[in-house]
């Protein structure tokens, strides 16, 4: 909805709706105030009213012009708060049961994605690691485990209206469900040093069938690679304790 930016996730419509609501409410008051402002300027210009009036601001008939808009704005604010919190709870607080999970790792100046591979679970031999491109299936609910390796980054997918900062030392879980296929931008919205300007990625939303074939094709490669590195993995895992 927002201008011509596609709306490609289940909650992007809610966020756009909230933006429209805020536009209507605050826009209305904004226009009313500006019109009143310029009208007063024109009506009480020196030419038209050479003598100014002594008004303390306690006159009831004038105070009403402040108090009524004031209370109405109070009501609009309550409406905005309720709408904003409802959207916030839906996007950031409730985690619908995931069909699949992906780990998103931000580091100085690239996004790395760990797909769960054919068996649908992370940290298994068939996981598919990619950098810069995230492959998801349309219509599937994804949980993303957001981490950062060094500084703050921010996982931002404009078409999903989704943004979440990645903090080193924390794993932040969020969700999204793509509604449109296509290839869109993934951006880093938190300054992360000299390469912040090149830290972009792409999200490729396929139909479930296309996605399954992609996973199948890449998982086999992942299994083969896993076999060779298992021996080294055990050694490095042991050494790390």
């Amino acid at each position, binding site marked *: 909805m927002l*201008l011509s930016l596609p709306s490609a996730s289940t909650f992007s419509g809610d966020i756009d709706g*909230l*933006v429209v609501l*805020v536009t209507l409410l*605050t826009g209305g*008051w*904004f226009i009313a*105030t500006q019109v009143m*402002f310029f009208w*007063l300027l024109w009506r*009480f*210009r020196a030419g038209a*009213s050479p*003598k*100014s*009036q*002594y*008004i*303390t*601001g306690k006159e009831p008939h004038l105070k009403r012009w402040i108090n009524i*808009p*004031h209370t109405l*704005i*109070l009501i609009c*604010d309550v409406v*905005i*708060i309720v*709408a*904003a*919190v*409802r*959207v*916030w*709870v839906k*996007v950031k*607080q409730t985690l619908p049961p995931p069909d699949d999970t992906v780990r998103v790792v931000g580091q100085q100046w690239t996004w790395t994605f760990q797909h769960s591979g054919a068996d649908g679970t992370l940290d298994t031999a068939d996981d598919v690691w990619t950098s810069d491109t995230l492959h998801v299936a349309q219509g599937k609910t994804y949980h993303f485990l957001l981490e950062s390796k*060094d*500084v*703050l980054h*921010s996982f*931002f997918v*404009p*078409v999903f209206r989704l*943004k979440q*900062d990645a*903090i*080193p*030392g924390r794993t*932040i879980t969020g969700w999204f469900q793509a509604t449109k296929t296509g290839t869109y*931008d993934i*951006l880093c*919205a*938190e*300054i992360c*040093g*000299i390469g*912040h*300007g*090149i830290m*972009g990625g792409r999200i490729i939303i396929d139909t479930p069938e296309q996605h399954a074939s992609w996973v199948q094709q890449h998982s086999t490669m992942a299994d083969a690679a896993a076999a060779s590195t298992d021996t080294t993995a055990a050694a490095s895992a042991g050494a790390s304790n």
Partner: protein
Amino acid sequence: MSDHATAAPAHGAVHHGHAEPNWFLKYFWSTDHKIIAFQYMFTGMAMALVAGFMAYVFRMQIAFPGQAVPLFGFVSPNVYNALITNHGSIMVFWVAMPVLLAGFGNYLIPLMCGCDDMVFPRINRLSYQLFLLSAIVLLVSLFVPGGGFGGAWTAYPPLSAVPKYNLTPMGSTMWVLAVALEFVAFLLGGINFIVTAMNARAPGMRAFDVPLAVWMIVVASLLFMASVGPLIAGAVMLLFDQNLGTAFYNPARGGDPVLWQHLFWFFGHPEVYVVLLPAMGIVAEIMTVFARKKMFAYKTVIYTVIATGALSFFVWAHHQFVAGIDPRMSNVFTVTTVIISIPVAEMCFLYVATLYGGSIRFTTPMLWALAFMAEFLIGGVTGIYLGASGADIFFHDTYFVVAHFHYTFYPIAIIGTIAGVTFWFPKMFGRMMNETWGKIHFWGTIIPFNFIFIPMFILGMYGEHRRIYDYTNFPDLANPQLQALRITSTVALVVMLLFQFPFLFNFIYSMFKGPKAEKNPWKSNTLEWTADSPPPHGNFPEMPTVYRGPYEYATPGRDTDYWPQNEKA
């Protein structure tokens, strides 16, 4: 300055014994609050030119990526980061605060409270010297090996704390030092403002006889003093992390980067009110004078100022909705953020209501004050999008935020400041500024200003994220229509910067050659207009006594439509 120098020192009640000081003593070692105000103002204006030039350079890089920028050269990514970081830091700490808080505060508080100087003149001088030192340290930090600090004016660790990540070890340390020095300077200055306004008021001047400009500068100083403490502690910890290998913000060794964000924004949000309130105070003085009207509900305005100040301590985490704080906390801060918009909206309504029943004269200062109201309303309204946590998920760290805070900061730091300068110029320099040049400068600044930032709202709605030196790296953002918007902003900025020269010319020319100004050219009530233009050292030959409030305009039964505060009933 030559004319000013010949003003004979006042033979007021208290005669300062020292002989006529030589040029250096008079201007660089003076304890006169007016000289210190000029020092702050001219340093602030000089830093505004520096930060304005930085804006020109990085806007040219965004509009024409990769091409060498005239008067600067090729802008590499780390130079770009340093430019945006220091543009933000200079504008907030070295332009808005010195000119609005310290410049007008130092000049107006003693004059408007009817006393001869600040309560602690020497500490006042020391606060400027510390401020000058901080400005020098910051400017030098741009030229040290590795270049200026490039981690945004919010300096989030670990980027700001670990040299390996920010690649500007000396630049970031000097940046934090400069900011810490600036805080100490404004703590000293703040104490002077608050205690002078509290204790050194003229006899008969009760709390509610004090002009709004003084009230707001005092509340602003209070907000600053109460909110800067934790950030000074945070800055000490950041300096230790950067140089002494501690791990306050290093998650792997027990620290937490989110701690800095909280300490920073606990200061950050009261800080925006610290710069907003003096500008609102200046606009209040100007609108009442040129509408010849009493302030609409003066006490309510003061209560909204105090309410805004108090609430400003409860809203800071709306800068961190998506920054990884606990989502439940974000709901709390959504509610407090929308609540704080109510007293500010109330204050704007009362200002607009002051125009009702007035006789409005569109002199240059009034044009600037009215432009402040019109533009600031846009800034205030677009803040609701960001306060509503749901929408902030999308808008955070996009150009929508950049446009929002420029629609609040620009009216504060530039429009409000120029309004104050043009309004008090006759009092400061004893000369009148040229009205036609003033109006050329006004329209030449206001119209391009909107063409800079309205395109940014649109870019923000396309999800264009901040602090990127070349948007052609992102396929969805590289399309020609968006690039056209970026070019429009840049061209509008260049036009606006060019229109600042008429103002500089008008300012310097009028200082020496402008028509002589009388004591009260605008027929205003407040005490500073009862002193000479420019007021001598010691301000008033005999200290005024106050009999009424500052806004008794158009009182029925009087022949003139104004009634100075010190005129006996």
